[in-house]
């Protein structure tokens, strides 16, 4: 019980911190549903970023804990004061703004253009995802060994530069000690472990179910963030975006039912998890929220700077969740640059400045982690080493698949494969194509995305649609290149859900673009 209460406190304080960051609701209208989602994701991003920065500065986890508690209490005070001001200012007022505000704050979904059925669907899927996330204690390999282990190290008072995380051992030619500590992926970021450890520290015990409570809300938050981002486009686009996102099966499970109805009997514990303290969904939620806030900052002038820097914070938050978050941050930055969204001229001056501010804040968030990361050992995923023009060209021009990394070949059981290795370039495009048409994981999201690319002259003139499209296309290209040079046996990665899990990172921007384009089309059709 104490573990549950502690997790609820962490959740409340994190949301309060996030809510205190957001612009006042009377300045920037949003429903309670959107407000909660934005506050929670922003709060989680700030806790992860600031916590990592403190650890990188050499502070112990106890300092992180006290700063979190202090920040949370402070945020609650700020919110209470803001709330009192809000009611004093607007209650009883009949001004247009007051009516708009009351409409936005009515019920859970407020002024969103969602039908009652759509609201019910969003609610059921969101709450169902939260419940499913905590329905069993941490029960998957990556969440257990890559993240919970590190969380436990922090919980037990360790620091990041702790032998439990750094004292790996390897062959010693000089006959030195070859025994060391065990840790999987020591240089994975500390966002998730840190949040889990906060719950455990507050409870005084590690409870493998409740430490992940703050991490149970990603699927609930994602559609709300998309909705908020598209508010500045059109109410219809916002509603459509939220529904598109929430209806995407990959937010809950991958390949569910692909082996028939019997998978129903193992739902929740099967080997293809998405919910439940893994890192891919957090990256997706952070990227979606960052893009939504950035879009809002670019398209309207109210609280622009504040929205922009929270967007940057969320981009930084994505980096704290998983190493791939860094790649996605780079892709978004590049997309903004290539789309011309960073050039401060004419009517786009404010939008470009907001984007630059977001990127600068994101860089500032990432720097402490990068310095810390340099001190941590990398055991097997040093992609920077493999990302060379020669290697890319080698595989592009028909280089053989690395069959020597196939377990059967290592065991001497697959001489045929060793003698006739397939070309990697002949495998990889097929893997991506299969994903785009895998309706049990994605619905028709990717098909719609490709059908909705902004190719018309009017849509191409819009820098926001350009950068959204380029971000998603860039992410696909980036992951294609990463898998092209991967030092592992590609079919084995495929078995582990790659590139599926990677494509999840861009589900928010993809849904935003599709909803935007579809709502524009519908308007055009209706006007005809």
């Amino acid at each position: 019980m104490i573990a549950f209460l502690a997790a609820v406190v962490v959740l409340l304080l994190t949301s309060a911190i996030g809510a205190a960051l957001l612009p006042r609701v009377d300045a920037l209208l949003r429903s309670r549903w959107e407000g909660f989602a934005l506050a929670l994701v922003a709060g989680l991003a700030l806790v992860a970023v600031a916590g990592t920065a403190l650890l990188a500065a050499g502070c112990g986890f106890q300092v992180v804990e006290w700063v979190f508690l202090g920040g949370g209490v402070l945020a609650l005070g700020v919110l209470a004061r803001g709330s009192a001001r809000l009611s004093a200012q607007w209650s009883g007022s009949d001004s247009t703004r007051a009516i708009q505000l009351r409409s936005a704050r009515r019920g859970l979904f407020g002024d969103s253009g969602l039908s009652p059925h759509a609201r019910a669907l969003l609610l059921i899927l969101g709450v169902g995802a939260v419940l499913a996330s905590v329905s069993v204690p941490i029960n998957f390999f990556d969440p257990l060994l890559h993240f919970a282990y590190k969380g436990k190290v922090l919980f037990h008072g360790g620091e990041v530069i702790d032998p439990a995380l750094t004292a790996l051992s390897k062959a010693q030619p000089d006959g030195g000690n070859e025994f060391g500590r065990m840790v999987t992926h020591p240089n994975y970021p500390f966002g998730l472990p840190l949040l889990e450890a906060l719950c455990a520290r507050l409870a005084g015990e590690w409870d493998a179910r409740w430490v992940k409570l703050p991490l149970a809300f990603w699927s609930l938050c994602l559609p709300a963030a998309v909705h908020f981002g598209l508010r500045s486009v059109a109410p219809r686009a916002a509603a459509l975006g939220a529904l598109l996102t929430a209806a995407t099966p990959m937010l809950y499970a991958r390949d569910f039912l692909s082996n028939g109805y019997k998978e129903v009997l193992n739902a929740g514990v099967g080997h293809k998890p998405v919910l439940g303290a893994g890192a891919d969904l957090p990256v997706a939620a952070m990227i979606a929220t960052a893009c939504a806030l950035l879009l809002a900052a670019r398209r309207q002038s109210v609280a622009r700077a504040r929205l922009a820097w929270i967007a940057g914070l969320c981009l930084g938050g994505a980096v704290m969740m998983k190493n791939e978050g860094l790649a996605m941050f780079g892709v978004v930055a590049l997309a903004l640059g290539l789309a011309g969204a960073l050039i401060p001229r004419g009517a786009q001056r404010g939008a470009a400045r907001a984007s630059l501010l977001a990127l600068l804040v994101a860089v500032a968030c990432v720097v402490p982690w990068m310095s810390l990361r340099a001190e941590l050992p990398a055991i097997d995923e040093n992609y920077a080493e493999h990302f060379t023009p020669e290697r890319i060209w080698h595989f592009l021009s028909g280089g053989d698949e690395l069959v020597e990394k196939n377990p059967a070949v290592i065991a001497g059981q697959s001489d045929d494969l060793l003698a006739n290795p397939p070309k990697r370039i002949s495998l990889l495009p097929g893997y991506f194509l299969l994903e785009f048409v895998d309706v049990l994981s994605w619905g028709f999201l990717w098909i719609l995305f490709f059908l909705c690319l902004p190719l018309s002259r009017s849509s191409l003139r819009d820098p926001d649609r350009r950068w959204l499209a380029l971000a998603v296309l860039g992410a696909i290209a980036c992951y294609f290149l990463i898998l092209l040079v991967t030092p592992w046996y590609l079919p084995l990665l495929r078995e582990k859900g790659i590139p599926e899990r990677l494509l999840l990172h861009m589900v928010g921007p993809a849904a935003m673009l599709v909803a935007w384009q579809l709502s524009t089309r519908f308007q055009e059709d209706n006007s005809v």
Partner: protein
Amino acid sequence: MGDAWPSRLRRVFLRLHLVLAVVPLIYLASALGNTSTTGFRAERSLYPDGSYLPYQVRNFILRSWPGGRARGRVITIWGLADDPSHDEIEETTRSIRLIDHLVEESARLNLNLQLRVVSPLAEQAKQWLPAKVKVMSDPVAALQGAHGVMLACARPEYLAVSAETIAAGLRGMFFFDLTGKYDGGAIDRTGLHYMNYGPPIGPPWLDPELLEYTEYLRAKVPEGDGMLLIPVLPPESVAGRNRWFLFLNEQLLPRRLYLWRTEEATATSVQFRQWALDYREFGPWQETRRWQPAQREITGVRQTGPVRTLSAAERAAVEELDVQWVTFFRLNADFRFQDWETLPVATALAGGEESP
């Protein structure tokens, strides 16, 4: 018209996408329904059963008595159906094929294996059972004088036979579990060898014996102590999932667990295989000898303890790393108490020569 069809196509896909919201709805309802059956705990019962390969199991069983010692052994087989809920049996049923394989191999190698079958479906199966196979009705009576019992079907009446009854009835030492459903720890405590040749059920961290051994170590080893993990022999299983030490390491924090060349051992499955090959080549056990601890805890198996003396490199590591305990283990596809032994460092250093 030309402009309208892409728009219509998009609408169709949009509607289909929204209809597919039914997939996550089914998933979430099933996930909550399934986990509610175990009180919202992750348990092996939530995972699907797998199936074994009869010819592979034949080899495993015959290897249990190496060097031709399988000759004249009596094996009792409990159950024939692939699934306890099945009440029909066919020529292709796995256990029928396994019996065929065993009988054929016995004839080929002149082993004179004797097989006893207990199953409510035995009459139905008689047409496919070799004439040499003896059909019996009482599972406990069928144990008498047998060298091993093989649980081929997890029917409740077989699972209900206690480990003590099995140990008392058997003449030999082997319990072959092809279902993974019997309590392996209970078998182990009686001193029998629990040989789980069934497919793994659920993830490794839910293995009941691993969980029990973790609890045992939590009680035995104080927090903060160091433990040196020593593979007695090269791993018998090189599947990445069977890296039991990873789960012990996670569960036993803040105790300090040390292993040989962890950079490879803890990385991907592929690197772990290389680690196993390297350990085979390194061969520290060659300069050591096996010994028997005076007393073993948790397991009832006495004669094949996993303990050996320490090599020079291992002794140096004990000094350097400030460890208080040494855990000897054999890495098998199944976690068994008998494969693991944790001793105070002084006992391990003494190597059975003297009482510390």
